[in-house]
C-alpha cells in the first residue's frame, strides 16, 4: 500500500511457509499494528473505529434477521412482529438493527464534522474524503431501503414519497418511477427489490471502507494541529496506543447504544410504523428518520418540484467538491479563528435544517399551530428556506472567501511541539513560528 516497511518476521516454520505464499500477516503488521499514527489524535478520531464496529454490527444483525424476515407485502409486517415475539432473542436483534442505524448516522455525522473542522479533506486527502462521501451516499440509500422493509405506514409512505422524487425528472420521470416500483405504486415488487438491495449495499459499503482505509494509509492521518507528520518523533505505532484508545471509545459508544436498545428502543422511530402499511390511507405527517431531516427540509424549501429534488441532491454532492471550495491552506480550524465561528454556525444551521424538516411546512416554526396562509409568518418552510440558503452559502461563498481574507494563527512547527506546549504550559511561551 504505502511506503511503510513492515518489521514482520515469521516466527514459526509454518508462518514462514504461509508468508511466502500470502503475506497477509505482513500487511496486518505494517498497516494495522505498526502503522505510524500521529500521537496527538483526540477522541474525535476514534469515530472511524466506532463506525467500523457499527458496520459489522449492522451486517451481523441484518444477516440474522433475514433468517426470519419474509419480504412479501402480506407477511413482512407480521414476520417482523414474529421476530419480536417468537424468535429467540429476536427483539434484541431487531432493536439492535433498528437503533444501530441511528447510531451509525450519529457516528458518521461526528466523523464528517470532525473532518470539516480539522480540514481533513484538504490535500493530499481529497480522494480519501470523496470515498467517504460516497460511503455516506450508499449508507443513505441502504438506510432508506431498510426502513421500508417492516412495511409499516411510514415505511410505505416514505418509500412512495421518496421514489416519487424521481418523477420530477423531465421526460423520463414517469418511466423511471414505474421502473423503480415495478408497477404503478410501491408494492410487492418494490419491497422485494428494496430487500435485495438492502442486503447487497452494506457489502458495497464494506468494499468502499477498504478503499477508504487504503487511501488513509497512503497519505496518513490528519491530526488536530493539521500540521503534517515531520518524523518518527511525531508518531506512535497504531497498536497498542490507538487500539486501546479506540477500544475504550467503542465500549463507551456501545454503552450509549445500549441505552437506546434496552430502555428507549422505539424513541428514534415513528409510532405510526407500528401500523401495517395501508396504500389507501396516508398518515397525517410523513417525516423521514431524524438523520434525513435536514435534506428533507432542503427538498421542501424549493417551491418547484424539480428544483427541490436538484437542491436536495446538490446539498450532498457539493461535499464532493469541498476540497476545492475551501481555499485556505491551513487545515485545522484550531488555527483559523474566523473559520471556526463559521464552522459552528454551519453546524447549528444543519440542526435548524433538521428541525425545519420535522414539522408541517405551513405551521409556525417549533409549534403545531397552522399559520394563516395570506400573511407573513415564521413557518417551518420559511426557516427551511433561510437555512437552505445559508447551507449553500457556506460552501459556495463563505469557504472560498474565508481562505482569501482570513489571517490564520501561527502554526506549531511540528506535532511534537504542539504536544509539548500542551503538556507543559510554560513551554507554550516559546514562539512556535
Amino acid at each position, binding site marked *: 500500500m504505502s511506503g511503510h516497511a513492515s518489521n514482520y518476521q515469521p516466527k514459526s516454520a509454518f508462518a514462514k511457509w504461509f508468508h511466502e505464499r500470502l503475506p497477509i500477516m505482513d500487511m496486518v503488521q505494517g498497516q494495522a499494528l505498526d502503522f505510524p499514527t500521529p500521537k496527538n489524535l483526540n477522541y474525535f478520531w476514534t469515530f472511524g473505529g466506532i463506525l467500523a464496529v457499527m458496520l459489522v454490527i449492522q451486517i*451481523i444483525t441484518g444477516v*440474522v434477521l433475514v*433468517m*426470519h424476515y419474509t419480504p412479501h407485502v402480506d407477511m413482512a409486517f407480521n414476520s417482523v412482529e*414474529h421476530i419480536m*415475539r*417468537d*424468535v*429467540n*432473542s*429476536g427483539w*434484541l*436483534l431487531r432493536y439492535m438493527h433498528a437503533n444501530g442505524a441511528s447510531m451509525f448516522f450519529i457516528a458518521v455525522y461526528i466523523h464528517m464534522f470532525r473532518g470539516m473542522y480539522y480540514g481533513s479533506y484538504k490535500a493530499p486527502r481529497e480522494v480519501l474524503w470523496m470515498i467517504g462521501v460516497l460511503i455516506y451516499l450508499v449508507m443513505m440509500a441502504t438506510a432508506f431501503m431498510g426502513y421500508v422493509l417492516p412495511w409499516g405506514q411510514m415505511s410505505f409512505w416514505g418509500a412512495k414519497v421518496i421514489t416519487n422524487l424521481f418523477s420530477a425528472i423531465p421526460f423520463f420521470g414517469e418511466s423511471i418511477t414505474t421502473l423503480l416500483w415495478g408497477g404503478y405504486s410501491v408494492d410487492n415488487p418494490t419491497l422485494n427489490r428494496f430487500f435485495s438491495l438492502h442486503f447487497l449495499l452494506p457489502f458495497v459499503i464494506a468494499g468502499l471502507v477498504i478503499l477508504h482505509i487504503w487511501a488513509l494509509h497512503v497519505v496518513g492521518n490528519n491530526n488536530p494541529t493539521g500540521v503534517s507528520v515531520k518524523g518518527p518523533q511525531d508518531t506512535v505505532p497504531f497498536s497498542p496506543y490507538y487500539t486501546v484508545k479506540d*477500544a475504550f471509545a467503542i465500549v463507551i459508544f456501545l454503552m450509549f447504544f445500549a441505552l437506546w436498545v434496552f430502555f428507549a428502543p422505539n424513541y428514534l422511530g415513528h409510532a405510526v410504523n407500528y401500523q401495517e402499511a395501508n396504500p389507501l390511507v396516508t398518515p397525517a405527517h410523513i417525516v423521514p428518520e431524524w438523520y434525513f431531516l435536514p435534506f428533507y427540509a432542503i427538498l421542501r424549501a424549493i417551491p418547484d418540484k424539480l428544483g427541490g429534488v436538484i437542491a436536495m441532491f446538490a446539498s450532498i454532492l457539493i461535499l464532493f467538491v469541498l476540497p476545492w471550495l475551501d481555499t485556505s491552506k491551513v487545515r485545522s480550524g484550531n488555527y483559523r479563528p474566523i473559520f471556526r465561528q463559521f464552522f459552528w454556525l454551519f453546524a447549528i444551521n444543519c440542526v435548524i435544517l433538521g428541525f425545519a424538516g420535522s414539522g408541517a411546512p405551513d405551521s409556525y416554526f417549533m409549534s403545531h399551530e397552522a399559520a394563516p396562509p395570506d400573511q407573513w409568518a415564521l413557518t417551518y418552510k420559511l426557516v427551511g428556506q433561510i437555512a437552505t440558503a445559508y447551507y449553500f452559502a457556506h460552501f459556495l461563498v463563505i469557504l472560498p472567501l474565508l481562505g482569501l481574507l482570513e489571517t490564520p494563527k501561527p502554526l506549531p512547527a511540528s506535532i511534537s511541539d504542539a504536544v509539548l506546549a500542551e503538556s507543559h504550559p510554560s513551554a507554550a511561551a516559546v514562539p512556535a513560528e
Partner: protein
Amino acid sequence: MSTAEHAETNRRDFLYIATGSVAAVGAALAVWPFINQMNPDASVLALASVEVDLAPIAEGQEITIKWRGNPVFVRHRLPAEIEAANKVALSDLKDPLARNANLSDGDPATDANRVVGGKEQYLVMMGVCTHLGCVPIGNEGEYAVVEGNVRHGGWFCPCHGSNYDTAGRIRKGPAPENLHIPQYAYLSDSKIRIG
C-alpha cells in the same frame, strides 16, 4: 531490574490480562443470541402436537400426516402383517431395539413394542428413513406380505434401497435403525394425539 520495577510490570500485565479476559468473555456472551436465534422459536415449539382420527382408516389402508414438518405413517395393519412381524426372531433383526419414544431406550424390537396400548393393528411411525431421511414407499420391498400380485405392508426406501418389514423394522440395506415411533397417546379408542 529492581523489585519495584518488577512489581510494576506484574501489575501492568495483570491489568492487560484482566481487560483482555473480560473483553473475551463479553464477546463470547454476545455471540450466544446470534446462535440461539436459529433454534426453534416459540411458535414452532407450540405447534408440536397433532390429533389423528383412526376410524376412517380401513384395514390394509395407510395414511400419511405431517407432524413437525415430517411425514408420519399411520397404518391399519392386516392380521397377516402382524403375524409376519411376530414370526421374526429378534436375532434376525439388524436393529434389535424398539425405537419407540413411548417405551424405554433399551426395549427390544418385538412387534408388540412397536405399537402403543396393545393396539397392534395400528402402526404409527415416522416416515423418515433412518439412513438419510427419504420417505420410504409403503406396500413395497422384500419383507411385504405377498398375496398373489398384491403386497401388503413393508416399506422400501427408493433412495438407497433400505427394506423395512411389516413392523417398520430395518431388515436389509444401508439404514442403521428401525423406523422411529413418535410419542403418541390414545385419546379414545379411535383417536390419537401425536406429540
